[in-house]
């Protein structure tokens, strides 16, 4: 048989591919922490089994993320222990969950808290409790170690994420002018964390405008500047700048002092805080308890979870607010809340990729990547010698509509996402496939609230913050932005409101706001 040239080339290249596949390391892994099935039971209003047991309790907290755990922390700290916290997942923590393997602990989502300013009283109080803040000093080992951030652009590395290399005169001028604009908004005192403290209607019109439009009207057309603004919006809101309100875009940059100290972080990210909160409140926490129905009653509400009906005087609803119409009887549909779909992946690396021109950093970002890059969990290790590590890879599916992206997120299999992530990393780390031995992926259809234009100034949002109801809402989405400080703020505020209304409880002076 005569082998044609084309056929020969075909077979030999197939053989070559076969060889290269053979030499590639096998990467294990799966989807983890899936809560989509349980969530869809609620969405599709499937019937749940009736309750067989009734428990009377003054208070039920729905949801064990940072909001719910912070409410519990405040209650127990005030000596009030008679409540239950119901968490639908096996592990409490919500967006501050973490995992651990033989190498290190690692985050599943939120991985740092910026140094809280003086207005973030509750955060400072918590960090004092946890030994993070001592005598006005931040514990050094909880501050992000140097080098903190690096950006890969134009084939090389630079320190920091704001592009500082390959800028034209125009780029520099615009970055400078934008910083001055942000400084003015910062000085106004209207952009604070927690958001509620400084919020005023003075800048409400900013919330009606997409961030990109605001940038364009101000004459910011630098490509690198717009990349950086988009990166910031994707990082904090899971959204592109065009889907973010200008108010929220400005808030990202104007709500904090330009701190050189860098954020607080831990190998397992904010999971470190979750663990310590749980240590203090675990007696009240019930995991694997999905609340399927809340029925308001004359003296409170009945909360149904599994086979138990909790007859409570008060409910703190710390779960994402979009769930309320699916759980609470006769709750009107919500208009304001939009959520961004995300995925995070934890990659176990048997060795670090060969990298020239940069030392391993805490946070690594690639210019023009649709993803957010990765964070190295062993960066906060005290060890000097690190050969194996875990990277947490972040990807907010921002381009396109949230519902389309949720569809993509859920319909594609693990192998699809594994390849997508490796391809993104391969742009910079050519040998990444030889380094990774495992990749676990967590998909979150409603990872965080998205401050689309109109969210921050929405009346619905303000109405939901009312503390004079029997059901008090407390998720971070009440602020329109999903960050640790907002979640903690609403959790603590709701707990304090309940304590006041239960009456006669010890209320520390100066505590109420």
């Amino acid at each position, binding site marked *: 048989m005569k082998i044609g040239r084309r056929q020969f080339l075909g077979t030999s290249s197939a053989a070559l591919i076969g060889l290269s596949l053979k030499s590639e390391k096998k990467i294990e892994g799966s989807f983890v922490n899936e809560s989509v099935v349980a969530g869809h039971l609620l969405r599709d209003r499937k019937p749940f089994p009736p309750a067989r047991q009734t428990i009377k309790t003054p208070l039920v907290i729905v949801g064990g993320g940072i909001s719910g755990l912070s409410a519990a922390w405040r209650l127990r700290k005030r000596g009030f222990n008679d409540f239950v916290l119901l968490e639908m997942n096996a592990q409490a923590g919500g967006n501050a969950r973490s995992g651990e393997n033989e190498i290190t602990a690692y985050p599943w989502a939120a991985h740092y808290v910026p140094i809280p300013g003086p207005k973030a009283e509750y955060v400072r109080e918590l960090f004092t409790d946890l030994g993070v803040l001592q005598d006005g000093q931040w514990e050094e*080992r909880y501050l992000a170690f*140097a080098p903190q951030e690096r950006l890969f652009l134009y084939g090389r590395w630079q320190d920091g994420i704001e592009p500082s290399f390959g800028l034209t005169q125009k780029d520099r001028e615009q970055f400078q002018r934008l910083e001055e604009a942000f400084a003015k908004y910062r000085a106004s005192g209207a952009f604070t964390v927690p958001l509620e403290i400084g919020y005023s209607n003075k800048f409400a019109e900013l919330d009606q405008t997409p961030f990109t439009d605001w940038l364009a009207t101000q004459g910011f057309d630098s490509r690198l500047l717009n990349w950086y603004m988009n990166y910031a919006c994707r990082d904090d809101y899971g959204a592109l700048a065009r889907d973010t309100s200008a108010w929220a875009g400005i808030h990202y940059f104007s709500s904090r002092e330009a701190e050189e100290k860098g954020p607080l972080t831990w190998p397992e990210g904010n999971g470190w805080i979750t663990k310590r909160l749980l240590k203090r409140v675990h007696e009240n926490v019930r995991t694997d308890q999905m609340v399927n129905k809340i029925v308001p009653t004359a003296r409170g509400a009945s909360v149904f979870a599994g086979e138990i009906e909790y007859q409570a005087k008060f409910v703190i609803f710390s779960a994402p607010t979009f769930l309320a119409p699916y759980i609470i009887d006769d709750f009107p549909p919500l208009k304001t809340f939009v959520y961004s779909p995300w995925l995070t992946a934890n990659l176990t690396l048997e060795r670090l990729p060969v990298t020239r021109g940069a*030392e391993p950093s805490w946070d690594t970002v690639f210019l023009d990547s649709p993803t957010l890059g990765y964070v190295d969990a062993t960066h906060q290790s005290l060890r*000097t010698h690190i*050969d194996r590590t875990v990277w947490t890879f972040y990807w907010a599916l921002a381009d396109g509509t949230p519902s389309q992206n949720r569809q993509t997120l859920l319909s594609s299999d693990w192998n699809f996402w594994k390849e997508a992530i490796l391809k993104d990393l391969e742009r910079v780390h050519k040998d990444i496939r030889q380094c990774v031995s495992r990749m676990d992926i967590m998909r979150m259809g409603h990872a965080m609230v998205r401050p689309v234009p109109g969210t921050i100034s929405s009346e619905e949002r303000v109405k939901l913050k009312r503390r004079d109801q029997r059901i008090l809402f407390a998720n971070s989405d009440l602020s329109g932005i999903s960050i640790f400080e907002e979640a903690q703020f609403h959790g603590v505020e709701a707990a304090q409101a309940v304590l006041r209304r239960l009456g006669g409880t010890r209320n520390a002076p100066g505590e109420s706001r």
Partner: protein
Amino acid sequence: MNILLFLTVLLVAACALIYELIAGTIASYLVGDSVFQFSTVIGTYLFAMGLGSALSRYLNKGLIQRFIWIELMLGVVGGFSSAALMWAFAFSEGFHIVLYALVIVMGVLVGLEIPLLMRIVKDRYSFRDVVAHVLTFDYLGALGASLLFPILLIPHLGLIRSALFFGLINAGVALWSTFLFAPQLMEKRTLRAACFVVLCLLAGGIVKAKQITATAEDNIYADEIIFARDTRYQHIVLTRFKDDLRLFLNSHLQFSSRDEYRYHEALVHPGLAAVPFAKTVLVLGGGDGLAVREILKYPQVDKVTLVDLDPEMTKLFSTQSMLINLNQKSLSSPRLQVINADAFPWVDQNTQSFDFIVIDFPDPTNYALGKLYTTAFYRAVARHLSAQGFMVVQSTSPMFARDSFWCIVETLHKSGLQTFPYHVYVPSFGEWGFVLAGTHEYVAPTSLPSALRFLNPEGIPLLFQFPPDMGPVPMPANQLNTQVLVRTYENDWKDISH
């Protein structure tokens, strides 16, 4: 034919002498006492050659073929002899067994060469001419080799590659002989294939040797590399020139055996002698055991804990004869406990208290090492210090890295400690700095252990005086989140090299 044949003799003779010289040189480099080493190596080699000559009478058939095989064997054994000796020195106790075994094997093979060659050519010339020509070229080759060895080979190729290079010549002679004696030869193909394999092996060795000693290292290390190893944690290199033994970790000089006593006496005694009640001492880093050697000079110290990351480092310095001569077997002392651990987590988790703590890490050349020079680290270490205790920190050069030195002083100060910086002159390092730190005032000791070579009680207060060009400069403290020291250090040394 004539001239080619006698050129073969010349090359063969040169190889033989080179292997002998290499064995002698390595033995005297590694073990010292060069007169003894050279004379026993030469004696054994010549004796083995005699043995080879005696054995040659038992070889009767296929002389040419046998000669080629001998060349190939000699190429392999001689070619890798250097590498094998270095390896034996590093990894086994039986260096001398390997040395003399190699010398005997090489000697026997060399001893077979000339008698066989003479018999191969005996029919072509008269006996008188054979003896005259062969021996002439034999001695000529020896002269060439003895001149090449010190002038060209050792300075430019080094021991490992010189041996491999001459192994190639042996194998080359074998290959060439298959052509030279082609008419009388059977199985030429097999022989040539064997030659090819041996040539590849040796050429591979040369390439690999270049890798082992990393291309750049030839420039970094002035002296012969006698040990090079990539451990899990670092790249360890030992070099030797005459009586000067040097240790390099990741290409940074750690000590020179000529003047390390200055460094280690200065590191230990100003502090430890000032804590006369000291019973427990902690050493962080210092896996070479040289600081421990100084500490063990205090009879009242009954427990020394050494924490060093790299087990291969502490093993090397507790088993190798030349190195245990240097540290006086300090790592085998019953008073010493060796812990192979990463220092920061160990310090963080351990709860013991110590009267004196020696911190002797490599300079802060990267962010990983930089963690060991931070306020967070010093605070953690200070928790282990007994009330009247002191710690001492090797703090790079206040002359060449002045900002770095004073940054370390400030870091210790910010960690809540009183600091007492001092400096000494170590010829191989230049001016070198240390910082004593504790929670109370330092008073220089009035007595020291006997038999110190560098320090005396009168001299100690002088070490604490800094001339203006090394004097204090205001620097920020080094913290985990800023790591200012790493950048400062990089800049300091950049300035020096320009």
